[in-house]
């Protein structure tokens, strides 16, 4: 499985309150929530994001609330993968459970810049920066988690 797209870049400790503010959580409609995704730190994100784009951030991405609306609104906005130095654990779990691909890679999080064209090979964990002509080795997942991701989420994998 591969993902390929243009990068939206953020810093450390991007919390779930800025990914999707609680004031919008009176709905569980993820397409509606995607319209407000990231708006408190990147007002134009929903307008600019294209299907297949990639989000890159630094340490502790998704810290804070357990709201699954956070990874789900990122996924619904069209983002195909989130790369970060590290993920907050509930976000990490939620992303896997709902089938939003995520990958940890220090070097990619440092070197990739906003607007770069990036490709990720989930089988090998290799991240290729087409704009800069560089590649970085990301952490691959244990088999147990790959199965969940490949089934497009926990509930589908439980059924299989």
């Amino acid at each position: 499985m591969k993902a390929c797209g243009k990068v939206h870049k953020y810093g450390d400790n991007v919390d779930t309150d800025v990914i999707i503010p609680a004031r919008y959580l009176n709905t569980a409609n993820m397409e509606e929530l995607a319209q407000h995704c990231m708006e408190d730190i990147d007002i134009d994100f929903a307008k600019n994001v294209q299907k297949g784009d990639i989000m890159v951030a630094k340490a502790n991405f998704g810290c804070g609330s357990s709201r699954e609306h956070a990874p789900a609104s990122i996924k619904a906005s069209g983002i195909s993968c989130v790369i970060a130095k590290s993920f907050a654990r509930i976000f990490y779990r939620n992303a896997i459970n709902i089938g939003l691909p995520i990958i940890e890679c220090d070097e990619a999080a440092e070197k990739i810049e906003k607007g770069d064209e990036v490709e990720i090979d989930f089988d090998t964990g290799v991240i290729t920066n087409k704009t800069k002509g560089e590649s970085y080795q990301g952490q691959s997942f244990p088999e147990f988690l790959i199965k969940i991701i490949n089934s497009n989420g926990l509930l589908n994998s439980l059924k299989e």
Partner: protein
Amino acid sequence: MGMTMTQKILAAHAGLDEVKAGQLIMADLDLVLGNDVTTPVAINEFNKAGFTDIFNKDKITMVMDHFTPNKDIKAAQQCKQCREFASKYDITHYYDVGDVGIEHALLPEKGLVVPGDAVIGADSHTCTYGALGAFSTGVGSTDMCAGMAAGKTWFRVPSAIKFNIVGKLPRYSAAKDVILHIIGMIGVDGALYRSMEFSGEGLKNLTMEDRLCMANMAIEAGAKNGIFAVDEVTKEYLKGRTDREYKVFEADADAEYDEEYTIDLSEIKPTVAFPHLPENARTFDDIPEVKIDQVVIGSCTNGRIEDLRAAAEILKDKKVADHVRCIVIPATQNIYMTAMKEGLLEIFINAGCAVSTPTCGPCLGGHMGILAAGERAVATTNRNFVGRMGHPESEVYLASPYVAAASAVAGKIAQPSDVM
């Protein structure tokens, strides 16, 4: 090699003699929790996946606490969806307006969690129940759904950081100051993927409410769970709340910890976490004059009776500053009633505070005290992220009930000694 408290509880729930940090396990669950924001997503997934039954009607709890009493039509629809699901499956511990309280204050009060339990909740502050010596962690709605259907879920066994608690808190220092100090020390990802285990001779000087406050904010250091050794304080708290038998798990003497810290309670000073991260902890020797517009005393972190007593001690016979709106939110109906009987509500109202029915409300910027652009609040809540309590250009300063009440009187960030 020995196991930590958390590892022992997880091993027992996975039917294994031993587990190691990093191991992936399937564990049985004693309780699955959701609220009015996270449960609708879980119900949608439950229906989409085609599940037709829940694993145990007594081991699922739904608490309508976030946007209640319903703040708008959409919030009302979400609660209605939860209510209908709870009714359809005859869920025993469904709590709605009138008997609802903030989930992490309510469940311990009702005796729904006992030492040794494994609990998941679709709310990040589910780690609160570690105060009772349970393994308890926040998850998302899909996990809640799988938990409701199957009564089990997967975990990666965490390693742990040990906090050896010694000494006794000085006057006007609080459990909130201790946990803000710890988060300031290790950072908002200092315990990422790991347990925070609290033990030591100083534990006897921390009440159950102190422990609930500290375990509650383990997530703000990125921890999977916070957990306290079980002692007489725990056993005393459980008396009269539950007749369930429980098993006490102790860490092995040779358990391995990633890091160990000693926390001397006698050195803890009133502390404030500045915007926009809980790790920005400062003591009053390093706090400039910060004028404020609002004070919130409540939440799953600090809305319990001892918190209200602390705030009332400061506010008695005083007035909230003219330019400050002070909102007091008892976390459960029982706390509300106790505060009323003890005359605390009268103290708050005489001081010029608004007193609200239990709700998470302003803590997450839902309702009941939203901030405008440029406004600042001192809150006894747990997060001060950008836009957490309202406008993205507003600011939240996290503090104890003592500091929050003193700040309400002073009209700026203040400690009790400034106003007493």
